[in-house]
């Protein structure tokens, strides 16, 4: 255990559960305390869980293509809830179709995400980054 807490889940009307289960498994093995709000989760579900557990980061998954709609105003809502410096990642298949990822990344950074992951980037890459961002030493 490294003492850090991460909220994970799949946002919106998205039911893709496999990656979510894998992420849960991988983060736990990497020493994080994992709070999994599961599939079909709203922005509020993520934020409430983060407040309740005093989380250090939220890792949003979006697979089904509606990520862009589902994430509108997420960072603002975090700020309103006092989660100003919370680390916010998103990954999966976050937009509809095969789009130029540089552009996609920019759009989501604009929405307030600290890091944005392309399709099929494995969770291990996210964990590496998280350790960096949270100053966790191996």
């Amino acid at each position, binding site marked *: 255990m490294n003492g850090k807490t991460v909220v994970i889940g799949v946002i919106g009307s998205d*039911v893709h559960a496999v990656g979510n289960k894998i992420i849960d498994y991988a983060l736990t093995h990497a020493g994080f305390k994992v709070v999994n709000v599961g*599939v079909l989760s709203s922005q509020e579900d993520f934020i409430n869980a983060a407040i309740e557990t005093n989380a250090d980061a939220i890792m949003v998954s979006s697979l089904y293509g509606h990520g*862009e709609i589902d994430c509108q105003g997420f960072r603002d809502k975090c700020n309103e809830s006092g989660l100003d410096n919370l680390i916010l990642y998103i990954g999966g298949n976050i937009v509809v*179709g095969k789009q130029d990822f540089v552009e996609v990344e920019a759009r989501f950074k604009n929405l307030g995400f600290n890091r944005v992951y392309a399709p099929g980037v494995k969770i291990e890459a996210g964990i590496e980054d998280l350790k960096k961002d949270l100053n966790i030493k191996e």
Partner: protein
Amino acid sequence: MELKNQKITMDDFINVRKEVLKTWQTGAQIADFDKCIEYASSVPKNKNFALKLKSAKMNHIVLIQPRAGVALVEDQIQLLQYLETEGEADLLPVTIDSYTRQNRYENCSLGIQESLRLCRSMLNGFPAVNHGIAGCRKLQESLTMPLQARHGTPDARLLSEIIHASGWTSNEGGGISYNIPYSKDVSLEKTIRDWQYCDRLAAIYEENGIPINREPFGPLTGTLVPPSMSNAIAIIEALLAATQGVKHITVGYGQCGNQIQDIAAIKALELQTDEYLHHYGFLNIVTTTVFHQWMGGFPKDEAKAYGAIANASVTAALAKVTKVIVKTPHEAFGIPTKEANANGLKCTKMVINLMEDQRAYMSKKLQEQVEIIKAETKCILDAVFEVGKGDLAIGVIEAFKRGILDVPFAPSIHTANKILPARDNYGAVRYLDAGNVPLSEELLNYNRFMLEKRAKLQKREVSFQMTVDDIFAVSEGRLVGRPERK
């Protein structure tokens, strides 16, 4: 009213119907049921999904069907016309967007607006309910191939009403298969009841001379589902549909990847579906089969994706299924462009054509695998009937509670989530942990034995890590997961 596996009476149906039509404004347009049937009758018979499948079955032809859905009617027309002509599709789908699937029609409205504004589809499918019969009929009239709604909607009553009233002659889904993989906390009581409604609706059209095809969603979570589990659920949904009077049923199966197991699963599914239907007195039902190309994570490289697509097509051709649902070279990234979609179809069509006069021949190995899948499926179905005390609907509810029916990697809290699958050394999917699935001692031993064999060859323990490795294997370019890659 208590849930039971029995035909909904016309009175009950009409009462529920009134409520259903109120759930979104477009419902009002189809209040007059006779007009709906009249319209549906006017659709040319060569555009009838059920009849096309029947004739394909009789002629041992394998049909191909894409997935495809965008936000706007005009775009959907263009997309499907392109897939008809350039893609050589035999059957057309309308893939419904995820908000509709959750009955969030307001979100759909927003999605439609945003799509208009940004000039690209902001929805991952076609919001048929929002478009109503105006849009849905226009779509159907613009095409020459039969149309089917493909979705993943726990409560698809309004959607089903609108599509059939628009002359779409097939509907995918079922009370289990569109609940467990597609929702988090919708009760099986509710979805089975709602799908009894959809089945009854299809049957009413059928009784009025319009054949309607119903297709339980075979692959479930698409992720290492043991064939006997998906077959058992497909057979259950076929029986539930037949009880409501459905006459055209397509049972489905998602490729697992071991060719012999896949062919065996299709053969077992064909045989047992007919056996169970006959046993329960349904004698005049046209059953057909659908094979889904690999439903799990796909390789990102397009050439490799073609390899996966064509490999699946060979299996489909050898098994002589009635139709194949086709993936595209964009699968790992997102909703395909129409070109990528057509490419998946053309690649599949080529293989199907090359293999059209060929089929799988029986070998000892194939026979063995058919027997094993049939035996496992029978263990499961016997137990479902038993805990339902003879009523299949009640049996399903009970069976899920007890873990007799159990779907791996599902989002729903209503599946026990106790079974764990993994591949054996040949890539066949086995029960690593059967949880509470009541397989006979002999079958459990067989599953265990096959996995031990892999463990020995891979020099490791039988464990969940195998399952994890298997989940990523195909997208990384192989079938069976390996402990470590150099």
